[in-house]
């Protein structure tokens, strides 16, 4: 089904054209480094000039930085701003001339123009107005690229010259270079925050647009999920219903099955490894278990769909139970296997963190090893274990490929593990893979589901990390 998706390259040429410019700036910048360094050496050799504040290389680096950085910033900002600006200038008056006011239709016109600019074959007749706009765009783009090159190169040369002229023995080049490095490091560290903000904003915006069309209450409490909408207004078809409850039930059913496998197996493995196993056994088995975590999920999906699901179906046929070929059990089972090492390695850490004195006290009272584990170690490690299980649950809820390949598409509201159910991630994938229309509730629903997923996993993570941290503090 996905194979029929047409490839629509929307390359508009502007993105790649800056590569030679950037290379040129980098070459200039290394040249500036060399010049700055040479100047510093020349100064150092002059007996009258006194001692250099920094080593000559720092003067070179400072010159290179002042040559390269401003120019690169100019290129980056220009690249981001140029395309929308050029598009608006090129399309100026086109929409009005065609009497189009609807923003969707304006977008269509803009896309037509983009396709013309990129040189793609346009199926329908080319509108002369759009053709003119495309020509205008190309003209403007040429001017813009020229202007950008001039601006960037000027900035590079001026920056390099300013520093070169200021190189004196007293110039605190090292301190300035280090200041710049520190700023760059700080910027890199804030990247993580920007990613989170980006996720929240991108998901939130589309979700808000979704909830403008579908009421929030219908989404959260609706019992029917069938996102097939009539795409055109005059098309006959279902109006689509977006009740997330069946999807959520499916998600929790499959995650529940997965946890029912992963928690006992993972926990018992962790207990055996940390309390009973000798060091050689531990050293061989632990990496082997980690392999289970390293296998890509698409491989598990293939395994679930091709080996486990048919096996379960055959087993059902033998015992006379009706088993769907995409049963929740198959997906859940394989997902559980995938999560075993996750639970076991986290619990292993937690159990190892329980102080030895607690064990010694219990043995001293005459308890056996298993009694010590059950009555002393597990209660002591309980918060940490709960934390690791919560993290595993969030993993199970967000897992995509296994369920996409082995679980169903139809949203059945059922708790029967032998039937096919669907999950949040499956729905996101099916709604967004293939041709999309970006304003239909069908596509936007995927973002609403994505937000639900994000909020649930985030909450689970925050709680889990809090619990684990609290627990660690208790024994440290």
């Amino acid at each position: 089904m996905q194979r029929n998706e047409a490839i629509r390259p929307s390359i508009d040429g502007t993105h790649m054209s800056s590569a030679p410019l950037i290379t040129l700036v980098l070459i200039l910048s290394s040249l500036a480094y060399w010049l700055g360094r040479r100047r510093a050496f020349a100064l150092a050799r002059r007996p009258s000039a006194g001692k250099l504040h920094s080593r000559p290389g720092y003067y070179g680096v400072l010159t290179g930085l002042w040559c390269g950085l401003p120019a690169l910033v100019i290129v980056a900002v220009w690249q981001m701003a140029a395309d929308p600006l050029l598009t608006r200038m090129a399309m100026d008056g086109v929409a009005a001339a065609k009497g189009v006011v609807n923003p969707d239709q304006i977008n269509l016109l803009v896309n037509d123009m983009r396709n013309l600019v990129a040189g793609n074959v346009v199926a329908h007749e080319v509108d002369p107005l759009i053709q003119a706009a495309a020509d205008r765009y190309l003209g403007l783009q040429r001017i813009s690229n020229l202007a950008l090159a001039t601006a960037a190169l000027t900035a590079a040369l001026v920056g390099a010259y300013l520093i070169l002229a200021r190189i004196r023995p007293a110039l605190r080049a090292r301190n300035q270079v280090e200041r710049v490095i520190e700023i760059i490091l700080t910027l890199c560290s804030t990247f993580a925050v920007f990613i989170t903000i980006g996720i929240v904003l991108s998901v939130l915006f589309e979700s808000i647009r979704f909830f403008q069309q579908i009421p929030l209450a219908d989404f959260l409490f609706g019992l029917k999920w069938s996102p097939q909408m009539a795409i055109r207004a005059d098309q006959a078809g279902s109006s689509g219903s977006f009740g997330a409850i069946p999807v959520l039930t499916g998600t929790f059913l499959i995650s529940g099955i997965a946890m029912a496998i992963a928690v006992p197996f993972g926990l018992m493995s962790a207990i055996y490894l940390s309390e009973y196993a000798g060091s050689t056994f531990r050293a061989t088995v632990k990496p082997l278990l980690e392999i289970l975590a390293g296998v890509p999920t698409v491989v598990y999906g293939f395994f679930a769909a091709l080996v486990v699901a048919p096996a379960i179906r055959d087993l059902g046929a033998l015992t006379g139970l009706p088993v769907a070929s995409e049963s929740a059990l198959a997906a859940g089972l394989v997902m559980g296997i995938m999560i075993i090492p996750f639970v076991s390695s986290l619990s292993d850490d937690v159990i190892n963190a329980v102080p030895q004195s607690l064990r010694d006290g219990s043995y001293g009272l005459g308890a056996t090893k298993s009694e010590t584990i059950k009555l002393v170690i597990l209660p002591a490690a309980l918060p940490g274990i709960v934390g690791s299980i919560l993290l595993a649950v969030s993993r199970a809820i967000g897992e995509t490929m296994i369920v996409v390949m082995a679980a169903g598409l139809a949203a059945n509201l059922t708790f029967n593990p032998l039937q096919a159910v669907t999950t949040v991630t499956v729905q996101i994938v099916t709604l967004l893979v293939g041709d999309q229309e970006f304003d239909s509730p069908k596509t936007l629903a995927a973002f609403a589901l994505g937000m639900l997923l994000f909020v649930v996993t985030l909450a689970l993570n925050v709680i889990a990390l809090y619990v684990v941290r609290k627990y660690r503090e208790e024994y440290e």
Partner: protein
Amino acid sequence: MSEARPMSTMARVNVGLAARYRKERRFKFFGLAAIVASLMFLALLLASITAKGYTAFRQTEILLDIHLDPAVLDVNNLATANYAALVRDSVQALFPRVENRQDKRIVAKLASTGAAYQVQDMVMNKPELIGSVKSVWVLADDEVDMFIKGHIPRNVPESERRISDQQAAWIDQLTAAGRLQLAFNTTFFKAGDSREPELAGIRGAAMGSFFTLIVTLVLSFPIGVAAAVYLEEFAPKNRWTDLIEVNINNLAAIPSIVFGLLGLAVFLNFMNLPRSASLVGGLVLTLMTLPTIIIASRASLKSVPPSIREAALGVGASQVQTIVHHVLPLAMPGMMTGAIIGMARALGETAPLLMIGMVAFIVDVPHGFSDPATVLPVQIYLWADSPERAFVERTSAAIMVLLLLLLAMNAAAVFLRNKFERRW
């Protein structure tokens, strides 16, 4: 002394002792059983994939005597000649007794549609062959291939298999004449995707994975290391750095598909970057691997003892000099190990790439970062969806290649760690 003496403590302990020891043994057995079961799952997974996939590395070929007819092949127009007709005629020539038109058509389908391209390549490389009769091994159709490999069993009713009794008889005839062979499947490593299983290969997906990982590595390693250095060496302890830390830990646990949504909304719809390109795939995977690399790099920086820093600062190095000259070189092996593990995870990642259109059916091998591309795991997903029996085998083979790559990367990480890790 008629009344019973109260039981001594030891006696009371001894009464329950056997039961308690039994419980102890049972508990220990459960632990071992859990580990053994988990490892059995792993073995089952690997064994079933190997069993399904190893046959894909060999491919059935048919020996055809192709008459390179000058009437069909015009020297000046070799690119457009009807090579398919040449192949068809030579397959049909192997079965002179088949007269019926419909049967003839079925006979012609024993050879792959790709055979025509094979002949075309041969003729275009050596135009002097025209006019001769040349014996060539050409690819067989995927169903012939499946039948030869035993994936289409003979002992089921004719209506339930894809090869009819008649076709089976023809194939047996070819085998008897020595005109069928299983040869190493070079197509699988040289070709891009195709709808014909015998013409499909992993080259396109492997190159896509390569370009994607290059983008990921080039972006995530420097940024990740820089962020780790700042957080470990410079950051003051305040609410802002706390926020960054919490953020990084949370990002590491966010489902990968959410990163795909971000990529779709920001890179494709907002920034208008090309759809299906490995550049965008690399950007999305960068966002995903960044937390892994930051966390590994921080751990690596933490393990460098403070005495190193103090010694450097003591002889007058600045903080930046201390880090660049002493701390980073010592922490580098650990950081590289983290980067390799992050890359291995990125290599196996599928879900976010589905969101940004890397699931398109792409025949051409990508040559650059903005070419439409797909990656190995997505190729596996696409093939797993295909109904042809022969794709099951190829999917498993692609999985084997992917797992080998991952194994190699992880082995490299372990090697680095063992070789350069220092305990202070």
